């Protein structure tokens, strides 16, 4: 991998839907106060400020629902190599993580309500580093997540010292 990354498994299109729905929820959480501010300005007859706040809310919503999810979807990926699991991800801060097979302590599969409705799951890979999951792969099809977990746990069991 000195020259470039190996072939990376990308996420399914369903993951993009998941990221957009999550973005929509975030936009609601962050955008509502801004929209409230716009309304307050409108009531107080500060039309210019109301318009600015409204524009801010729209830009925020567009960023969180359209720009960020598609960038995140393109950046996430993983590759199971002979000696390690490679995970790429991140929009603003791009990160490539290598988790050696023999270091994996355990693997979690998580499904929130949206993920379950879409048939998706999130894989979390833990080592002994102690700072939470060392690697997270969101938006995998449940079967893929199960298969990946089986593969990682089996490799780990084979490789364990």
């Amino acid at each position, binding site marked *: *991998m*000195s*020259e*470039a*990354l190996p072939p990376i498994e990308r996420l399914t299109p369903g993951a993009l839907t998941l990221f957009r729905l999550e973005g929509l929820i975030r936009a609601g959480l962050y955008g509502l106060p801004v929209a409230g501010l716009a309304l307050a300005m409108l009531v107080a007859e500060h039309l210019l400020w109301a318009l600015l706040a409204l524009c801010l809310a729209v830009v925020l919503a567009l960023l969180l629902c359209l720009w960020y999810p598609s960038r995140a979807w393109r950046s996430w990926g993983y590759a199971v190599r002979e*000696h*390690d699991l490679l995970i790429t991800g991140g929009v*603003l*801060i*791009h*990160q*490539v*993580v*290598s*988790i*050696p*097979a*023999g*270091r994996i*302590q*355990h*693997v*979690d*599969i*998580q*499904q*929130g*309500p949206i993920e*379950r409705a879409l048939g998706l799951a999130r894989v979390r890979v*833990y*080592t*002994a*580093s*102690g*700072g*939470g999951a*060392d*690697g997270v792969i969101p938006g995998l099809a449940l079967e893929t997540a199960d298969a990946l*977990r089986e593969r990682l*746990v089996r490799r*780990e*069991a*084979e*490789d*364990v*010292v």
Partner: protein
Amino acid sequence: MSSEATPPSSDTPRPSAPTEFPWQRLHPASALANLLPVTLRLLRGMAVPLVTLALVSRKDGELARLLVPASVFFILSLAFTVLHALSTRYRLAGGRLEIVSGFVFRRTRTIDVTHVQNTEVVQPFTHRLLGLVQVKIETASGLKSEGELSALSPEKAQELISALQTARGAAAPTAEAAPVTEELIVQNSPRDLVRYGATATGLGVGAVLVGLALDEVEASRVVFRVLERRWEAWAGSGVLWVGVVVGVLVALTLLLVGNGVVAAVRYHGFRLAKAGERFQASFGLLTRRQVGLNLHRIQLVTVDEPLPRRWLRFGSVEVETAGLRTGEANVEQAEVVVPVVAAERMSTVVRELVPELPGELSELTLNPPHPRALWRARVRAVVSGSLVALLLTGLLWPWGALAWGLLPLELWRAWLDHRHQGWLLTEHLVIVRTGFWRRRTSVLRRGRIQSVSAVQGPLERRHGLGHAQVAVAGANVSLPSVAWEEALRLLDVLSPRRPRPSTPPVPVAPSDDVPQTTL
């Protein structure tokens, strides 16, 4: 870890324990066993706000209205506890323990039995009333237990533990070690410790504290209100400014002396000794502590040498291990600090802790960061310096505007830091040096690396740079910025590769880089 344990005989495995069993649920009374502790915890958390509300509410209905959301939160928390207990199930199959829990957010946790470090049977008060126990299963992934089953009957708990032990084929503890002679590595006098404490807080932090204190005084106008009548005369004669300067100097002196005293009390009588492959540190005036370290458990050694310590010809050494363990006689903690090591003995002491160190620390030829990384450092310096200057300008106008004049100094600091960074890979070690004002040299064993990341922030991406980040148990070390291709190459080089054994490994041998506790 809970100390109220009256565990059933978990240390002795049953010879006929099964290595697998199908899905099992918690004890039917588990929800009840967990309800009381959760209720007490919630009430304890809500007591202060509720009492405050009761005291400040002026109308009868006011408190009642505020109690509604608190009650909803209370009921939801209790319902969550019950649902969690009802939904949790576990099984042991294929050499793995699987724990499934949650109705809305379902979590499936899979733990390979070969990675189980410790199991603990705990019996809190409510569990004891109901004749139940908690089982905690720990791997080396963190400080919390990775699997917690609350509550099971003692028989079921014993069955699970025995099955885990049988599946793991746990070996008996090793025989008693032969007696070895103790060798003193470092001993610190009270004078050393005062020097350590006085240099522990940088001048920058001190200045910030003094600034905050002065700002507080100015804001409350306590001093100025008293001096108001004489303000004109004093300001004119310059007495006020002399007072401010003296005040700052006194505050700094108090800060240094205070740090020195705290360090002298905390590390009183510090000594680090070595017996075979085990280190023993003992220190403390009020609370005496003994910390035991095994040479093979040491993950990371960091030499901390800020400029004042370099002037005084010493540095301190921080030692990180993987875990936290308590025993009857002593405590093993994740980190030991050796407060004072003379500069000329630094490499010798570090080599005791990391025998693979190739040469004198100060004479190692380190790889420099990428030249373009200096731009990143400059941008960061300008941004952080501008924010501070902006804040000071707003708060202390017009004198606060002078802070903008410090921006060139900040750029100079960034250049010095950049110039003194470096990294080196040897066959066994990763050595990273950062900073000029606060120089820190990290030495970590490549064999202890848990994961490696190549990270690229927005500023680095602009210049085609990135940096490698190495995680060992309990700590992360970032290497200086290099070209992105180099960061990706480091990802491959640093990620430990294990030669596949020709014969199947016995699933017993625990890895020696994480704390081991037999079941």
